[in-house]
């Protein structure tokens, strides 16, 4: 293994991790604020990807098409999130864990068929935007230009979320609501609006993630089912409800996978599960979570 090969694997691991971070950040945010593990989060990501394809097809512009489609898809998902939260999700805040999980799992099933009905069974392909179709050489290792965009955007989203939660009034209220919902309500702040906002924000990010994913590989049915399990692993390792945890966890999962395929090729995925199990046994609240949440 030469140095540049190792660096290559490292870069692939980072890009893989970034994609996971996009989805897991929303997942962990919803859990952190509303205590709901949204099984359907990857399904929303997939819907975002399909919407991106639709907008991209309509716009039909090789230069700008994608840059407009991605935010459009993200906004559409935010709107859908808003409606879903008001109509459906808020009914299960006070319910048991199993009821919440079942509701979101049922959503996975429904969304899967809705996608099939709306977009059909064909694989959908979105081309990478002009200028980002090739690769550049980093220390002797080829790296697709589009992935640089993915990593940069991921960093931006991470910073943006941090800024939102730490530096804005909305963010402060959200953190207060996590700490004590009753007190925030007692102060006259409409907590339910906060929750709606957080849910919509999470779906915005999921839609963004879907849009970003679209040109990477093809968009197919069932992609959500396979990635949601990896996202759970990320959230466990990083810590439920922790955004820095989601970032670190995603990078860990991405890098472990990337190097595992070189060393123990058939066991790469099993390794992730073993790591998840070990974290749950040894430190259930993950690297950045707080024991209080247990």
């Amino acid at each position, binding site marked *: 293994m030469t140095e540049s090969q190792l660096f290559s694997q490292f870069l692939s691991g980072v890009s893989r991790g970034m994609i996971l971070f996009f989805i897991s950040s929303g997942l962990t945010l919803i859990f952190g604020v509303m205590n709901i593990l949204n099984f359907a989060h990857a399904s929303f990501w997939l819907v975002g990807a399909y919407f991106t394809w639709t907008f991209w097809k309509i716009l039909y512009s090789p230069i700008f098409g994608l840059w407009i489609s991605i935010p459009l898809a993200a906004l559409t998902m935010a709107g859908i999130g808003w409606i879903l939260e008001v109509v459906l999700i808020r009914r299960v805040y006070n319910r048991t864990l199993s009821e919440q999980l079942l509701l979101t799992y049922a959503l996975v099933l429904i969304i899967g068929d809705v996608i099939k009905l709306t977009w059909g069974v064909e694989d959908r392909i979105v081309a990478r935007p002009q200028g980002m179709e090739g690769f550049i050489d980093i220390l002797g290792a*080829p790296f697709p230009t589009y992935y640089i965009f993915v990593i940069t955007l991921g960093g931006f989203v991470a910073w943006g979320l941090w800024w939102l939660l730490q530096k804005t009034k909305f963010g402060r209220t959200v953190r207060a609501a996590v700490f004590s919902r009753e007190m925030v309500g007692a102060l006259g702040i409409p907590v339910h609006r906060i929750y709606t906002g957080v849910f919509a924000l999470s779906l915005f990010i999921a839609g963004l993630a879907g849009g970003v994913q679209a040109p990477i590989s093809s968009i197919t049915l069932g992609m959500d089912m396979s990635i949601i399990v990896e996202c759970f692993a990320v959230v466990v390792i990083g810590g439920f409800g922790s955004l820095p945890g989601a970032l670190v966890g995603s990078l860990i999962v991405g890098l472990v996978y990337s190097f595992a395929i070189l060393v123990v090729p058939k066991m790469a995925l099993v390794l992730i599960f073993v790591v998840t199990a070990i974290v749950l046994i040894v430190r259930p609240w993950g690297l950045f979570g707080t024991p209080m949440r247990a």
Partner: protein
Amino acid sequence: MKRMNGCKIGNMGMIILLAIVFLSPLPVKAAEPYHLGVVLGLTGTGALYSRDGKNAVEMAVEEINKGGGFLGKHPIKLFVRDDQTKPDVGVREAKDLILREKVKCVLGTYSSAVGLAVEDVCYEYKVLHIPAISNTEAMTVDNYSPYTYQVVPNTYMQAMGQVIGISKYAKQKGWKSFVSIGSDYEWGHSTVNYFVDNMKKTFPEFKLTKQYWPKLGEKEFSSYITAVMGDKPDFVYAALASNDNIAWMKQAKPYGFFTKFPYACLISVTEMIEMKDELPRGVIGETRAPFFAHMDIPMMANFVKNYRAKHNQYPSDWAVMEYDAVYVLKQAIEKAQSIDIEKVKNALKGMTVDTTRGKLNFRKSDNMLNCQSYIGIIADDPQYPFPIYKDLLIVTGEESWRPESEIAAAREKSGLAKRRSPGELKF
């Protein structure tokens, strides 16, 4: 007076009776409709291939019913079920079709695991089974059933076809080493193994240096792409599941992968149409039933014309094979002059049939149609809005299937004798 009335009544009666007999439709004994079942993975990873297959079956049934059905007197009643790409559901749906809808033949399936499970159900209930998309060799060799007749080139034949096609290029260009990447499930493993084993016999100087096994459903290949490129092989052989292969090719292209490394994999007409702009030109593809290879055969040309008229696109391999399946059944029924399952089953044995892919026949030892495998280089063609194969090499069934001498040993290994009666295994 009475007598005259009696005569009058009698005459009236006769006239009325004759009128009734001649004016009413003659009471013919109602012809038994032929119940045909289809089990496909309409939900799941194979939804697209399954949908094409379903469309083709429906088209064939419509055509045959225009002529009154099988033998002109048994209109076909079609029952389609979704096995959700799960063997358990496939078993239950097959039982539903056989026990409730009383089908005489089951067409299908997409996934090999479901195909094997349904094969066993059809064997138990003595119903014909023609898989036209699932193609694991296990269905005809290891798990052979006298009721199952296969019209797709099986995994062994496909891998052998690639060995024949690729060794040609390998010898020409002096390739010394290759790397394999296969989806980590049974199809991926058996395809790569068949390829590697047979390549060793054909061209032993061509050595396998590394193997990669991405999980089934993998969509993020960057780690694999960089690893393979790091190995710097002369050639890369891929046996990735279709959706994964599309993702792989799309992701590898920006790395310049296909300009640096010769690459071979399965590329069916579906991928050619779906990926038309993104498909890397110059890769060596193989597929099972491309329509463009047989446009000189009237049955194929007609099928393509009608399919395009109805569905607004060219038929994929899956559509071609399911269409053939229905017509194979039709010809067997005509040969047997009966729709009775046992008679049709016996008619199919070793039968020669007209298909869209030419005149082919079933081998008696495993009920395998000697269908061809198609290898070529992906290139644009002025006739079609998507790339097809150029330098097409057609490998016949006889060149590519497992030699009959090895079949008994393979069945011995799988313990088939425990599950079938000795008479059924003799050939």
